[in-house]
């Protein structure tokens, strides 16, 4: 009896999820045009920067790292969501993760790509990038960061591809009215998949290995990025909490962007059955937990030195808590942490997709500002006080070029995701089917399907 239901539901799942491939979502042209224009403006700005040198940025000898490095930390941060959904949730046995894994991996893939790109934008001599290979010193955290980012990018590619194989086979078999090159691509990507026992065995093994390996790699990427600044002696950076502080800040921002992406895809592609209230409220709980953790980390990072007010830290903390950067600092703390925590504490808000998405935007934007707060104010407080610096050397406000290049990186990040979702199903079809078979609709968060599959607990 149940197997009939499952077969019926399979049909619905496959039909609905395959229909998103190549489908236009609402206002697609407008969004792509705007994003492409931003990307082109950014590329032009980058060319200007390459020609003129970094003089076109607002960075100078004191504030020698600006929003490019802040964005590096941001991109590395949101890339952690893939590892969170595909590994942490996997090992905690959260069955509702099934429909979310591909979205998370896509965010990761796109974010890591741009994370690797940001340092190149920041380099004074990008044409010497290959020196990192020919003259690389593995004693430098930059080498660790490059190694970790490249590893994570490659790993994420594999991890994006592995669960795609059965779906690609499905596309190969079903989407026969596609253009020839697309069919060829799907055929190639399907790697001869026909779902036999051995193939399943190998695929499961691969996914299992990757989901174990990707977690330490993901954490190392972010920890090593944190080390870029905490391996220095500067006030505010010289703290051992930096690694975990970055990791949890990243998980929080990643969770927020996951919720936002889900809401966009849910509405844009009519995926209400698959990205359901259950997923949003479950992720809202996760976001609540992560914002609480991050607040706790912030109290440790800023509160502990603020109690002591030790010489070098004092100037920086005065600046952050009461001085030039106080507005930004308190905005990130109040609107990015305290208000989200209070709001998410109410079940009513957690159950409302609209509110959860609103809170996620708050968290995400404040997480972005927080990256700025981590990098820039610290550079304005060196051990030897700034005296007689040339005009513009002791302050920092990004120039148009920097804004354009940064905006283009953001736009590129979204464009890459659009591209990925245009070519592949947004929700992993076979995993969803498997989840339905094993645990039933409710457990994996499917809502209002034509039939309802219930799996009794003891059957599982």
């Amino acid at each position, binding site marked *: 009896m149940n197997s009939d239901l499952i077969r019926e539901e399979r049909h619905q799942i496959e039909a609905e999820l395959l229909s998103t491939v190549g489908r236009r979502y609402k206002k697609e042209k407008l969004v792509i045009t705007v994003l492409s224009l931003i990307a082109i403006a950014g590329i032009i700005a980058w060319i200007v920067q390459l020609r*003129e*040198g*970094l*003089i076109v*940025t607002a*960075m*100078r*000898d*004191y504030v*020698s*790292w600006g929003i490019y490095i802040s964005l590096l930390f941001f991109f590395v941060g949101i890339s952690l969501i893939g590892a969170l959904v595909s590994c942490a949730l996997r090992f905690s046995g959260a069955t509702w993760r099934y429909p979310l894994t591909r979205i998370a991996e896509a965010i990761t893939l796109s974010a890591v790509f741009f994370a690797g790109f940001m*340092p190149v934008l*920041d*380099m*004074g*001599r*990008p044409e*010497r*990038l290959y*020196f*990192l290979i020919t*003259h*690389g*010193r593995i*004693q*430098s*955290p*930059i*080498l660790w960061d*490059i190694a970790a980012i490249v590893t994570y990018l490659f790993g994420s590619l594999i991890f994006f591809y592995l669960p795609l194989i059965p779906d690609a086979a499905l596309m190969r078999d079903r989407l026969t009215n596609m253009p020839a090159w697309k069919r060829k691509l799907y055929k190639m990507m399907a790697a001869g998949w026909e779902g036999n026992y051995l193939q399943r065995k190998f695929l499961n093994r691969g996914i299992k290995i990757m989901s174990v390996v990707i977690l330490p790699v993901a954490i190392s990427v972010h920890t090593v990025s944190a080390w*870029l*600044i905490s*391996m*220095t*002696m*500067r006030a505010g950076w010289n703290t051992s909490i930096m690694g975990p502080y970055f990791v949890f800040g990243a998980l929080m921002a990643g969770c927020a962007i996951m919720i936002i992406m889900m809401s966009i895809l849910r509405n844009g592609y009519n995926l209400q059955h698959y990205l359901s209230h259950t997923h949003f409220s479950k992720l809202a709980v996760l976001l609540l937990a992560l914002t609480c953790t991050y607040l706790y980390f912030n109290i440790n990072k800023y509160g502990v030195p603020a109690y002591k007010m030790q010489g070098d830290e004092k*100037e920086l903390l005065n600046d952050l808590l009461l001085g030039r950067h106080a507005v930004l600092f308190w905005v990130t703390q109040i609107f990015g942490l305290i208000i989200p925590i209070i709001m998410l504490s109410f079940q009513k808000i957690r159950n409302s997709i609209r509110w959860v998405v609103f809170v996620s935007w708050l968290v995400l934007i404040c997480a972005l500002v927080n990256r700025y707060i981590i990098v820039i104010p610290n*550079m304005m*407080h*060196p*051990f*030897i*006080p*700034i*005296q007689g*610096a*040339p005009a513009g050397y*002791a302050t920092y406000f990004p120039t148009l070029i920097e804004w354009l290049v940064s905006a283009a990186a953001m736009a590129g990040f979204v464009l890459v995701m659009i591209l990925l979702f245009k070519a592949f199903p947004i929700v992993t079809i076979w995993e969803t089917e498997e989840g339905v078979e094993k645990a039933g609709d409710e457990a994996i968060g499917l809502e209002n399907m034509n039939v309802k599959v219930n799996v009794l607990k003891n059957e599982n």
Partner: protein
Amino acid sequence: MQEEENTRRSFLKAGLITGAAALAAGVVGCNSDTKTKGALTGKKVPLLDSAGNLIYVDEVHMPVHTNFAGISDEESRKGIPGKKFVMVIDLAKCDGCGKCTKACNKMHYLPPEKEWITVKELQDSPKAAPYFFVKPCFHCDDPPCTKVCPVDATFKREDGIVAIDNNRCIGCRFCMAACPYSVRLFNWDEPVKPNIVEVNAAPENAFQSKKGCVEKCDFCSHMSRKNELPACVTGCPMDAIYFGDENEDAVTNKSGETVVLSQMLEDKAAYRFMEELGTKPRVYYLPPYNRQYPKPEMKNINSESQS
């Protein structure tokens, strides 16, 4: 001018009083090497004059200096054999005139806004007297900057100097973030090139500015190759800066006063700046005790706000 020059030479040839001759040499000052090599081309090129100001001169008026010691890349990374350079700065003598900076900028063809050696006015606590603090690169023995360099563009040499190879630097500016003393400078745009011919390896050139690369004080290693003192030492009218070789246990200042390093450090209670950072600087300071100049005005301790 020419006549005076000849007079001076004849006096020197006479083998008279060396001390007086040195005095005279200081007073007579430098002569411009500018020579007219032909008709004006009409093409103006930017140039830094001796005061460090940017001027435009006709191409044919460009002075040509050559600085060639045939130092190979490998030698420039190894350093001067058998040496361990060290600097001692006597804060009791520094009156903050900034001539060290001027001399350095001239030596390295730097515009005025770049300072490899810089004079800060510090005051350690509200009731303590302020003093002038001369800050070159400290050429630390445990340099935080060389630790983080991803491509070995900045490195510690055997002679103690922390040098930069601007043919290697990728411009990531990690070293600038790592240096606790804000010593390192970045070439944000194309530097004005002096018309000089230098064919040594990059770390031993007088002119080290390159767009997109980091630069800093190099202890004038190209001068040490010639057994000559760095520009800041010879530029200090107060004899406040001493430079020498730790292996020889001796340091020398502008007027040629050569003292035993270890004894001076002991006698005058020398210290290194921010010893607690553990970077082991190669620059020692003698405390501003018994000042030989009018002390700077007392200021509010919060020097941060005056930037």
